């Protein structure tokens, strides 16, 4: 029997206990609007079943002790806890599946310490990276965690989802940039999770390395209440260059050449496929006027000291052209690269089968794949989406990107995304089921080619979640044992990633 918790476990008595813990009724919110507004994230949402995703009550804590006491209460009563930071994730980590208590950490947005000697900044989970970097600029340092949601996502969510950064090839991704953190466990204890030793050490060999366990768990193992982050020198110089190709395979080959160039300031390479270019021609001022011969694009960016970047830029220009690449010009290189820091889709990108512009929600399927399989996966993914688009008329293929994904090692790993538009206003149970099925087929292709379902968003939703045991393979019993040991009552974000199986 599954030991899952139910919404009904919250009653007036529990609310009174929560109010006693928090001591401020404005931060304990069982009202309808507070719950309704914290039900979805940018990922496609079954809006026809919105109310099923309401949390029962929302808590806005200010301290780790408040979080701890609320979690202890939930653990005692078997009430689900759903942590929420920015709610900007592209999977369902922050979407309640079984109601319960939502812990919304946005009030925990303080900068606790800036240490310019040992190069760390310690913050609450509710702070946004852009806002943090506005503060850090005057010290000549930066926290370079740079997702497409850079201006709106929050540090706590980045840790919870194990986020990917546009500049990861140069500076690492979230898990590389978090040095240590304070975590409230599912049983309510407040623990310090580090490499070992003090909270500012980057590497240790003592004991088990717990830090990775607590990044990317999608809120299923605890709630980060404070994090000590890396400070890197603020880049002196940025260089970006975009190259066009008349054929995807030439662009693919050039991506390989650039990522294996050995240039240390290389921050990221992005490969746009033919469908992506077609899609950009709909409404992107950089691509609308391009000639038909522009069928694929490779973007490359570097950050560092001028004395490094300037000579390396010459080599980038040479390599970018080495396989028939054509430079797209300074204006696109600068403008389009700048827009990559906040590149969330806008809904009017969507087109129905007649070509009419309609408001579509964005699904970004974000597999982790090796370089060698990119062309084959691309073909199979587009074929899947085309089939569903044709049959249901509410989906749209927005093309594919492949981004360098190895931290400091750009040569072999890619975050590969196929962007799919979904006309949410047309959703009903049948269409939603079709969507889940489409997603599952896409994820299965990733697994077939030795990839992972997700490089950064998390496998928390229908269509992905049921494939987690398969992807984990022989390690799945270990995963289940850890989950059961840390969360004996399955209260922490239950229903995600097939972790209910830990209790069967």
């Amino acid at each position, binding site marked *: 029997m599954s030991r899952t918790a139910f919404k009904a476990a919250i009653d007036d008595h529990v609310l009174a206990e929560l109010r006693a813990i928090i001591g401020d009724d404005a931060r304990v919110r069982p009202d*309808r*609007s507070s719950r309704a*507004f914290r039900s979805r994230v*940018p990922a496609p949402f079954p809006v026809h079943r919105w109310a099923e995703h309401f949390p029962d009550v929302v808590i806005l804590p200010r301290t780790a002790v408040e979080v701890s006491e609320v979690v202890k209460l939930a653990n005692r009563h078997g009430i689900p806890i759903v942590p929420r930071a*920015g709610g900007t994730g592209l999977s369902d980590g922050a979407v309640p599946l079984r109601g319960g208590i939502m812990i919304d950490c946005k009030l925990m947005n303080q900068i606790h310490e800036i240490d310019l000697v040992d190069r760390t900044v310690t913050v609450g989970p509710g702070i946004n990276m852009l806002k943090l970097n506005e503060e850090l600029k005057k010290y000549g340092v930066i926290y370079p965690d740079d997702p497409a949601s850079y201006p*709106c996502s929050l540090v706590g969510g980045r840790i919870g989802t194990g986020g990917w950064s546009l500049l990861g090839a140069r500076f690492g991704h979230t898990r590389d940039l978090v040095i240590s953190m304070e975590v409230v466990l599912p049983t309510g204890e407040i623990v310090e999770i580090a490499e070992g030793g003090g909270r500012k050490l980057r590497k240790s060999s003592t004991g088990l390395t717990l830090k990775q366990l607590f990044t990317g768990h999608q809120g299923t193992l605890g709630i980060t209440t404070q994090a000590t982050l890396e400070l890197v020198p603020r880049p002196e110089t940025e260089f970006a260059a975009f190259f066009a190709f008349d054929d995807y395979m030439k662009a693919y080959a050039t991506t390989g050449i650039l990522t294996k160039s050995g240039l240390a300031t290389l921050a990221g390479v992005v490969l746009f496929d033919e469908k992506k270019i077609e899609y950009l021609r709909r409404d992107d001022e950089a691509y609308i006027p391009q000639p038909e011969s522009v069928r694929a694009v490779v973007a490359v960016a570097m950050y560092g000291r001028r004395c490094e970047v300037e000579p390396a830029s010459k080599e980038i220009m040479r390599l970018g052209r080495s396989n028939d690449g054509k430079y797209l010009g300074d204006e696109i290189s600068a403008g389009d690269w700048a827009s990559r820091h906040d590149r*969330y889709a806008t*809904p009017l990108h969507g087109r129905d089968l007649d070509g009419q*512009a309609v408001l579509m929600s964005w699904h970004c399927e974000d597999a982790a794949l090796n370089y060698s399989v990119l062309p084959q996966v691309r073909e199979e993914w587009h074929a899947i989406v085309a089939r569903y688009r044709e049959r249901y008329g509410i989906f749209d293929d927005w093309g594919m990107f492949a981004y360098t994904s190895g931290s400091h090692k750009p040569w072999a790993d890619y975050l590969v995304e196929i962007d799919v538009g979904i006309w949410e*206003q047309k959703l009903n149970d049948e269409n939603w089921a079709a969507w889940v099925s489409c997603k599952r087929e896409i994820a299965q292709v990733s697994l077939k080619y030795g990839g992972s379902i997700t490089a950064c968003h998390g496998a928390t939703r229908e269509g992905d979640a049921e494939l987690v045991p398969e992807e984990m393979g022989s390690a799945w019993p270990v995963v289940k044992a850890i989950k059961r040991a840390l969360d004996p009552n399955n209260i922490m974000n239950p229903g995600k990633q097939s972790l209910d199986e830990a209790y069967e």
Partner: protein
Amino acid sequence: MGEKELEFAERWRDNAYGCFSSGHKFCREVCPVMQVTRNENHTPTAFHASIVAMEKGLVEVEDVADDFVHCTQCGACELRCPNTLFTGDFYRHRTRTVDVVKAMRALMVETGNEREGWKLWNERLALDHNEPVLGDVRVSQEHVADWADGLDIPVGGETILFVDCEAAFYRTSYTRAFAQLLQRAGVEFGLMREQWCCGGPAAEMGYQDLALKHATHNVQDWRAVGAKRIIAPDPHDFIAFTEDYPKYFPDDYEFEIVLGVELIHDLVQAGKIELTNPVERTVTYHDPCRLNKRKGVHKAPRELIRAIPGITFHDVDRVTQWSYCSGGGGGLPIEKPEITAEISRRRVARAAELEVDTLISACPWSERPLSNAGHEANIGVMDLFELLAISAGIEP
């Protein structure tokens, strides 16, 4: 769910869905209210979600009424929204959060969910035809031009100077400085016979009929004196005259509307106002939301500050200032004065980091809360026109 709610949801549903289906929340960290409360209920995303939720019967007006008070209508959210910033002009379909907030507040009035503070404020507006900006002291038409004592400004003419309620009764030094700058440049202008409130704030708080009544009066007064051109020094009035009035009178609105700061900029450039007196101050500039975010006006004020001899100017760029605000707009200080005060406190603290002695604004509505915060932080708050008048050697 009443008929009015359904009608409202129907009217705004598509635009709301543009936000709801994106769910990306780029608005959140630029929203001045959200920066203070950190409560997702107060995000523009939540405002749009509430319309979708209302259409589906999941929330009613009374559930969201308090949420919709939490907005200064600064416009940061709708400008920063990718649906505006990246594709709004392309599709001629941008996010309209300010309009949605105004419409929801109107619905609150219609459905008996109005807020007590706004109700009293607008009752007094209805009575006196100017906003009760002096608190317990009543305002009246008898005193609406007291600020101009001794300046010999005629009534009527082709060019009318419209003076905002806050500027006519409270921040009168601002208005006097502006009028004297025009006189110095030899600009001919007059005042209205009876100058009522522009109606903009009433519309912002949801009192649409009252707003229309005031707009109608003002347009009639302009026509009666043969006005062709209206000078609006206050950005709030400029918004009312270029956005609200054209909606009220779409087929019959012949006036030229001139923004005060741009007019003064032109006059300085043309050498008609000479800035000769040095001003030994270290200043920074506060981009008023209704200039910078709502209208894209940011160059003229900066060029004017740079034209003042002796001044040291520590500027903060206009994009960084999308997330700045005084908290003085949209009726927020009437209903949530503590949030306005905190927004202003943070704005002044930003100025203090630049080691300036003076924060220059260009909007009288911002200057009251900013001055209060500046007093605490020992930073002077001045209006740009006041500063220019000093440099031009104008005696107050």
